[in-house]
């Protein structure tokens, strides 16, 4: 009997992956008691995580073909979707766990809405990764984005700074929604279809129109991913949001990057579109690496530093995608995973410091050694230090770039790492080699230990550089499945 239900769940895994967080969001919002609502949200996320890991294990690591029932929602899990779903649900699970210790900041009255919106963010991006056509991607991405805006607005209880951050997110998201709609219209006109499987397969009547359409959709997703110079919202939103919203922002960032990866990988596989899309990605990627690195070096607010560092890292991901090869796609997937765990580690450590100013990190090693280790691990991963997962991603990019003759892309990756040595090194120096200069407000709340799993798991994930075989294999298999050929 259990096997029957397990097989049924596997057959409908994409739909359940979408449904579990959405139903969990509704339940979490309906429960007025903050802790009970939190438990309900955690349960829904745990179910989604189990489904996502099972789907990835079957579809990627064991190589079994994924048979899914015909779903009225036209869901089609591909390589990128199966790789991304466990990362999204895992990051959300850690965010929700940490949220249990941040209830004072959110406020018990708003907490059920915060849990519900975070589940909606995850569901939205999973929907965008599994949608079978561009309209589905559009709707799902906007659901996720608007949920993120709502979460940013209420994440700091009564503090008003979060509202202006949310406003920036809203205006940026609205502009990107308009771009994406126009792009979808152009692609539909040029190709005759907006179904993703058909974009690469059908003959393209107007290649330039289709390229412009893909460029607009890519730009729209790049805005949502905080890619520089389109990241005008991210620093303000990160800098003024509450700590729980920052954890969920990692889910949003990974979702946007993975959706962009998915769209781009389909477009670059089409012969008439590949060159134009590749050029756009190369320009955007190089610009993002440079601008993000410069801004991160000068940042004095840890949350904003993370936004700029994420922009720099996203630039490296775009450069990997610009290569248009399975090796480049695999490198992009590994780098996205590395970005997620590095940000979780940084935000986890910063949440213990309780203030986003860099000066709040002074002497953190003496009063919070685990948080200090997490910040150090995150900084080392951003630097691309050997034996960290960040190094793996950078190395894969450099390898793929040199293999394609793109020496300048390898140089950009090195520039990004060098800049990270500056700003990451500053963090480590403050944490370990300075004394606290202001009075420290010690948190005595026992629920603060709920942040511990985030720190521990982020440190372990960054240490995957010691034994990366599973991650590398999953990324390689996902890339091969996505592009229909092996690296």
């Amino acid at each position, binding site marked *: 009997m259990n096997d029957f239900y397990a097989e049924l769940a596997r057959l409908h895994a994409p739909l359940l992956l979408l449904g579990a967080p959405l139903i969990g969001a509704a339940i979490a919002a309906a429960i007025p008691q903050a802790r009970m609502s939190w438990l309900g949200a955690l349960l829904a996320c745990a179910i989604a995580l189990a489904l996502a890991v099972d789907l990835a294990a079957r579809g990627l690591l064991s190589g079994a073909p994924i048979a899914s029932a015909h779903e009225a929602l036209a869901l089609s899990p591909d390589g990128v979707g199966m790789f991304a779903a466990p990362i999204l649900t895992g990051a959300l699970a850690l965010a929700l766990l940490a949220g249990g210790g941040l209830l004072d900041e959110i406020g018990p009255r708003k907490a059920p809405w915060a849990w519900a919106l975070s589940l909606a963010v995850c569901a939205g991006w999973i929907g965008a990764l599994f949608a079978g056509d561009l*309209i589905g991607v*559009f*709707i799902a991405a*906007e659901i996720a984005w*608007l949920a993120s*805006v*709502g979460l940013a*607005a209420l994440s700091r209880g009564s503090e*008003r*700074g979060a*509202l*202006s951050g*949310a*406003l920036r997110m*809203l*205006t*940026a*998201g*609205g*502009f990107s*929604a*308009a*771009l994406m*709609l*126009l792009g*979808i*219209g*152009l692609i*539909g*006109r040029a190709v005759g279809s*907006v179904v993703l499987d058909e974009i690469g397969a059908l003959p393209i009547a107007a290649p330039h129109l289709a390229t412009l359409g893909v460029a607009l959709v890519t730009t729209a997703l790049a805005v949502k991913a905080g890619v*520089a*110079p389109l990241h*005008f919202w991210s*620093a*303000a939103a990160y*800098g*003024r949001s509450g700590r729980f919203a920052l954890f969920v922002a990692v889910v949003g960032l990974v979702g946007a990057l993975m959706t962009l990866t998915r769209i781009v990988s389909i477009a670059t596989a089409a012969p008439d579109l590949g060159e134009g899309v590749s050029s756009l990605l190369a320009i955007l990627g190089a610009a993002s690496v440079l*601008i993000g690195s*410069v*801004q991160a070096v*000068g*940042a*004095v*607010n840890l949350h*904003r530093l993370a936004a700029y560092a994420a922009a720099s890292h996203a630039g490296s991901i775009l450069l990997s995608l610009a290569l248009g090869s399975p090796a480049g796609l695999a490198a992009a997937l590994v780098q996205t995973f590395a970005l997620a765990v590095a940000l979780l580690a940084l935000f986890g450590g910063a949440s213990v410091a309780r203030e986003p*100013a860099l000066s709040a990190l002074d002497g953190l090693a003496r009063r919070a050694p685990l948080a200090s280790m997490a910040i150090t691990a995150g900084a080392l991963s951003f630097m691309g230090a050997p034996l960290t997962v960040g190094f793996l991603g950078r190395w894969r990019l450099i390898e793929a770039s040199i293999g394609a003759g793109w020496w300048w892309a390898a140089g950009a990756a090195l520039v990004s790492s060098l800049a990270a040595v500056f700003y990451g090194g500053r963090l480590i120096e403050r944490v370990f080699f300075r004394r606290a200069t202001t009075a420290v407000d010690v948190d005595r709340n026992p629920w603060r230990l709920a942040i511990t799993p985030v720190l521990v798991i982020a440190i372990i994930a960054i240490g995957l550089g010691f034994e990366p075989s599973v991650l590398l294999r999953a990324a390689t298999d996902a890339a091969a499945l996505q592009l229909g050929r092996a690296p």
Partner: protein
Amino acid sequence: MSPVVLQTLGLGVCTALLVAGGASALMSASVTKRLLGVLIAIVAALLALAALGAAQAATIAGVAVAFAYCVIGVALLVRLQESYGGSDTAEIDAADAQSEPAEPSA
């Protein structure tokens, strides 16, 4: 005028409207104007979809998203008015900057 020329002209007008709406959304001095800019940009995109003969599903999705942005935007506008006592973006940024050190711009 041939239908193709008309369609191209229509598309050009919609694109210009989208750019204008986007510029307003990102650079206006007032929160209300920024929200209006967002709506104008999305409506321009919907008009472009109509000019391109896009599927009805895309248009319906766009209308739903525009409505959602409108609702959330108005809610944000009201909360900003209550919290800051005004909707001028420069004043809001100045009030926020007092609690944060200055950041370098690219």
